[in-house]
């Protein structure tokens, strides 16, 4: 009788375990279905002409040249601005800041900024950069908006990387008469670099896929040229995908799928780089 109950209790555990496992592995299934669907729909359109043609009303002539170059411009500028600023902020918070109310406020604030919906950043960019600073609907305005959007992510990741550097290294540097900045720049930063880079790449890959803020600041969807400077108008890969996906015709949906393949491959390459950096650092590191 009592062993019967025990058996039932163990059976419950087994069922529960099975259920949780099935649900957890469902993530893989979803991912597989999504990738399979996108590939099946889009692969047919993915050729050299697709990569090198400008957008067009005729699906068979349409391509992503301007979107691709727009994204390259956008990400390059965003990286150029957000990496130094984000790492500097992280260095201040982790290495310099006195433990006072202001630094606490900054910390909490960064945590909250990371949760602000991206479309709100779009509105900020629209009013602040496009209109107030009169940058227009330029790549620069887009990059500045993206910068504000991913700064919290970069700062949080860079702080984690800095925190992982053992204090013994800092103390060794200070005992040699180094100033804070000398210690950070020459000793702490190089050790934290792989971690920072990983975080930066993940943040930038978020920027590559972000659509809503760009829609807000009015990144144009029909752009038949490649930006030549930071003040040029632009479109970007996710915008182009959004544009195609929101049209009713089946062909354009498939073009969107082809664009998604390009986007996902780019993201995959970036993530692979991040993983590679992390593993190399672990192998050569302490």
């Amino acid at each position: 009788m009592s062993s019967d109950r025990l058996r039932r209790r163990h059976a419950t555990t087994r069922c529960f375990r099975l259920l949780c496992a099935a649900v957890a592995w469902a993530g893989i299934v979803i991912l597989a279905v999504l990738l399979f669907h996108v590939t099946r729909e889009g692969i047919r359109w993915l050729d050299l002409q697709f990569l090198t043609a400008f957008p067009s009303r005729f699906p068979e002539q349409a391509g992503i040249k301007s979107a691709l170059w727009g994204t390259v411009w956008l990400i390059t500028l965003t990286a150029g601005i957000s990496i130094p600023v984000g790492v500097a902020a992280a260095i201040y918070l982790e290495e310099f800041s006195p433990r006072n109310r202001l630094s606490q406020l900054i910390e909490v604030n960064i945590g909250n900024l990371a949760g602000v919906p991206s479309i709100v950043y779009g509105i900020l960019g629209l009013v602040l950069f496009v209109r107030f600073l009169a940058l227009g609907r330029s790549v620069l305005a887009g990059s500045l908006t993206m910068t504000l959007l991913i700064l919290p992510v970069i700062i949080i990741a860079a702080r984690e990387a800095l925190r992982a550097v053992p204090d013994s290294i800092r103390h060794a540097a200070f005992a040699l008469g180094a100033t804070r900045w000398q210690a950070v720049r020459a000793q702490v930063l190089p050790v934290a670099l792989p971690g920072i880079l990983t975080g930066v790449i993940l943040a930038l890959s978020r920027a590559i896929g972000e659509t809503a803020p760009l829609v807000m600041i009015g990144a144009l969807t029909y752009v038949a040229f490649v930006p030549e400077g930071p003040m040029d108008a632009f479109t970007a890969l996710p915008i182009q995908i959004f544009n195609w996906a929101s049209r009713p015709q089946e062909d354009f949906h498939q073009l969107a799928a082809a664009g998604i393949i390009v986007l996902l491959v780019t993201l995959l390459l970036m993530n692979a780089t991040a993983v590679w950096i992390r593993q190399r650092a672990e192998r050569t590191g302490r």
Partner: protein
Amino acid sequence: MNTQTTSDAQISSVAQSRSVLDVIDVTIRYGTKPAIQNVSLSIPQHRITAIIGPSGCGKSTLLRAFNRMNDFIPNVGMEGRILYLGSDIYAREVDPVEVRRRIGMVFQKPNPFPKSILQNVAWGPSINGFTGNLEDRVEQSLRRAALWEEVSDRLHESALALSGGQQQRLCIARALAMEPDVILMDEPCSALDPVSTARIEDLMFELKERYTIVIVTHNMQQAARVSSLTAFLENGSLVEYGETDQVFTRPRNQRTEEYVTGRFG
């Protein structure tokens, strides 16, 4: 026992040579908890001074006060004065960076930078505006730290590839490259095997010709072997300070006697 008069007497008894560091009535607190209480002593030039005492008595805290490394620990408060060659290292106008350039430190666990051997030694001088021949300075420091023979052919290899004892000598070389006046060592041999320990003790003997050394140690024999002066701390107070010979063979204080003879507790 009146601490104040004892330590005054002790200061005068060891002051035959010029003093480099004068600790005057220093109290150090972590938060409100005192770790060092009303300690006064003088560290003479070109001698090895050992600080001994049971675990947690405040040895490291006192040592770190000498080059202001306590500045990096939050909530540390200090009263009293510490003079280096007569000037207060905690005075408002003194830059702690300058203090640490004169008073170097070697830590308990070897902590080389994860860089090449050369870069480890050269970095200190190069950030401090050294204009001479850097490679000569590196070689000279490594020789003084008795490491040159072992590493001269692999200066560009990672310092992390060295053995623990070699790493600790590298850390000493790194400190020497700054040409400091004083070298503080916090249990520099506790992570090392007996052979490496012996090498570092020999090294200290040679170094005292040029440098003033303060060493914290748990090892009675080591204190007796290497130091000329010994300070015994207990519960944050200075119990006895004098010539090592005297402290170990004719201690004035009963607690000291119990501690150095191992009948402690």
